């Protein structure tokens, strides 16, 4: 019961961060600022969702699997953000490509 309540709270909190990240993606003025919003908010959002799901996990293997997902998404997210930022630096904003 307590675990279920905590799961709901953690996942809802995570969704708030996903929503905030999306709001930043839409509202921020340029590619770089949008990258900030995506990587950082999604990292915390996914972290909270994963924490919530860990409370429902069937055993240590499931918990580790969820943790692994978070670490891999984190590594992929920060690397992708850097690559998009670098590409924007050398080639200009994407809008100007058209």
């Amino acid at each position: 019961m307590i675990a279920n309540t905590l799961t709901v709270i953690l996942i809802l909190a995570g969704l708030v961060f996903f929503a905030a990240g999306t709001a930043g993606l839409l509202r921020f003025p340029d590619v770089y600022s949008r990258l900030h919003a995506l990587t950082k908010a999604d990292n915390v959002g996914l972290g909270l969702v994963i924490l919530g799901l860990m409370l429902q996990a069937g055993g240590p293997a499931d918990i580790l699997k969820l943790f692994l997902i978070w670490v891999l998404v984190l590594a992929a997210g920060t690397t992708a953000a850097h690559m998009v930022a670098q590409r924007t630096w050398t080639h200009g904003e994407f809008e100007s490509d058209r």
Partner: protein
Amino acid sequence: MVRVATHRDASGRAGLSRARTRWRRAAWTALAAAVLWWILAGLDALLEPLALLAVLLAGAASLVLPTSRPLSVRPLAIPGLITYFLRASFLGGIDIARRALDPKLPIAPDFIEYRADLPHGPPLTLFMAVLSLLPGTLSVRLEGRLLTVHVLDRHSHPEIALRELEKRIHAAFEDPRRQSEETP
């Protein structure tokens, strides 16, 4: 004279320890492969002959592949680095969520240059990766050791956070340059 002798002694020991590091690396790789198999497929699947073969081959592959430059990690500094990262990246998420949802959109984006005194390879890569998850900073470009960093709020003194992170990564890795300067 003494200096030459100790030098030769050290290189002999280095060769021996390199062979030992190779085997240790193979053992760790096999262990990691086994744990990964267990996480993804369960304990029963790990005891299948095919899984054991894959685990052994993973270990063997790391013996065949060329070794990278030895990199010493200070295990004692790792928990501190992880705690720092969890705290800072959580604050980073809260910071960005607050700014994104604020009707006034309080951001003042700018670029800063930062010279990182970390050796190339894992320490610098880790620095650039973690830096993008700290509050308000995003690594854009690296030229030599000169980093171009995008900051979301130029009034928030991002250099202080970057120094702090650099110091912590410094503490977690042995710097090969610094070591060779200190030993003679």
